[in-house]
């Protein structure tokens, strides 16, 4: 599959801009969205392509996408074998996109392709990642907007990436930056936070947001729990990946101090005054000290994992350091 797609990468002219849209059961939306993207981007005089990812839709999404691809060589349809979810769909779109600038958006017509122009302008200014902010969001208040507000506040507090609206899919990336960032599980909400490990210049712009025209929303309240766990993982990974030993060392500090204190309290009177040493106290101390040791060993293991892995800090640094600032004609 992969070799096939790289083969026809060579065949056609390389576009500058790739618009990536994941679709899951959006048969009514795919046609109008295609029209809107073409209407918005074609006047910009930028060679572009559209990468549509069919995330295992059960309806006619794929058939309509194939029709579009037949008519227009700028459409590239990536078909998943089954439904995998939004993050894998985004990741696949990013993998198959050939442009220098990638724009991602939702397939449900809630984002407006007319905003792409602003994103390109921001990228041309030198930003690596431009994030949309749906400042007049057209969604249900209780089930969508309020949880999203809380999540965004939390994400900003924890990751320190000052973004108002992490849930907005309309984003633009310099391809070299986003292609180097591991994107898995349900990380699409945290792309800016994950990207932080590469030290990109992030900008935020206001975008238009439309109410859903067709189909049903694919989200509910249940995702909050997962957001919390993912958030913690990202925080620890993004801030400590390069130094697992240090991270585990910090984790080990607490039990070590606690253990030493407990042992001291138990043993000092026994040694100094020949009193009876308390077994539970000394025992607990030993347990905590042992735990600290275990964590330190875990940290060493972490160093090993990181060293043999394919995510290397210096590569990220080089990436943003040497990012070419291609000026686009407005």
């Amino acid at each position, binding site marked *: 599959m992969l070799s096939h797609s790289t083969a026809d990468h060579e065949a056609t002219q390389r576009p500058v801009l790739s618009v990536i849209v994941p679709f899951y059961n959006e048969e009514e939306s795919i046609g109008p969205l295609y029209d809107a993207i073409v209407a918005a981007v*074609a006047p910009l005089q930028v060679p572009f392509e559209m990468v549509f990812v069919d995330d295992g839709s059960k309806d006619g999404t794929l058939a309509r996408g194939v029709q579009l691809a037949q008519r227009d060589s*700028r459409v590239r*349809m990536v078909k998943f074998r089954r439904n995998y979810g939004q993050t894998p769909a985004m990741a*696949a779109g990013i993998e*198959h996109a050939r442009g220098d600038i990638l724009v991602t958006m939702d397939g449900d017509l809630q984002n407006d392709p007319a905003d792409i122009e602003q994103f390109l302008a921001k990228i041309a200014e030198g930003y690596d990642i431009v994030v949309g902010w749906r400042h007049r969001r057209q969604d249900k208040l209780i089930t969508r907007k309020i949880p999203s507000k809380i999540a965004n506040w939390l994400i900003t507090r924890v990751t320190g990436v000052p973004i108002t609206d992490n849930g907005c899919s309309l984003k633009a990336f310099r391809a070299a930056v986003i292609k180097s960032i591991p994107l898995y599980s349900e990380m699409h909400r945290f792309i800016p936070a994950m990207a932080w490990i590469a030290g990109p210049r992030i900008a935020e712009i206001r975008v238009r947001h439309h109410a859903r025209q067709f189909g049903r929303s694919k989200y509910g309240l249940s995702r909050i729990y997962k957001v919390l766990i993912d958030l913690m993982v990202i925080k620890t990974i993004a801030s400590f990946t390069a130094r697992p030993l240090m991270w585990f060392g910090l984790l080990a500090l607490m039990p070590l101090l606690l253990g030493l204190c407990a042992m001291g309290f138990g043993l000092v009177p026994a040694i100094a005054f020949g009193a009876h040493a308390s077994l539970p106290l000394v025992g*607990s101390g030993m347990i905590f000290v042992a735990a600290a040791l275990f964590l330190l060993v875990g940290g060493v293991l972490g160093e090993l994992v990181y060293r043999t892995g394919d995510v290397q800090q210096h590569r990220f640094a080089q990436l943003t350091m040497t990012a070419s600032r291609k000026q686009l004609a407005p």
Partner: protein
Amino acid sequence: MNPSTAPSRISIIVPVGTRQSAAADLYADYKAALLSRGASVEFIFVLDGPQPAFERELERLAAAGEALTVIGLTRSFGEATALMVGFEHASGDVLVTLPAYSQIAPEGINALIDALEQSDLAVSHRHPRRGGWFEALRRRAFHTLLASLARVRFNDLGCSARAMHRKVLEEIPLYGDQQRFLPLLAERQGFRVREIAVPPSSLRAPSDQYRPRAYTRGLLDIFNVFFLVRFTKRPLRFFGMIGVALCSLGVLELLYLVFERLALNRSLADRPALLLGSLFVVLGLQVFALGLLGELIIFAHAGGIKDYQVDRVIHFPAAANEPAPTQASHTARPVAVS
């Protein structure tokens, strides 16, 4: 089966473990069933560990002019490994794995291969099953438990007669005893899996006993699958749950002890409960740290781990004379843009 889409070549892989029937009878049965297809068939026997009697019989068959490949492993590596070794030597587009003892009626093989027209993997479900009520109950419990964990229901994972397209084994590396769970793994990988009811063999299978050890292994297998299908990508979701539960249990106990010490003036240092609380806290911390280590592994190797399987990329390159990138839009009606 439609002759126009008949597979060009079928590879039969038979991993031979300790449970085995007479090689000559087995081979004759399988061959007779496949003869009617007219397709070219190759037989690959993988001896999982030394099986002198079986090997001698196969040699006798080979000497009699039967075309078969025999691969001998120096020790027993497990059925899944034997299967993968056989797969490496297989040249067919369609692979059929068959047990080394009479498990299903040989005619069932054809039903399995036929089912591949609408699916990537066809697994057999022996029906009607023989055996006592206790065995039936045990099987039902095992499969129900698995179904609830993996969210896909299969009824007879113990039956190793399966037919598949080559790509299934190319994408799913098996090891140890995982061949039983191939349908679950394939389903998860996005392959179309079908279960075909197949009549069981009329012959008596050799020593089909379930000793306590087999039960323990079955339970471990379930745990294994639980991990493989649910948490491989997110270790912290699993480890974190256990770790936080243990740790908070310990912290609660310690807090209670401290409360008793401060408010009720009960001595703290002499109570064994202190040990228990510390143990819980430490255990929770360690499990949690393991989960984080797992996340680190996933993150550090994320480039090599694919979260998705692309079926195909549909793209029609522009005709040579057409200026592709600046082609005018075909449709004049843009969506309402405010």
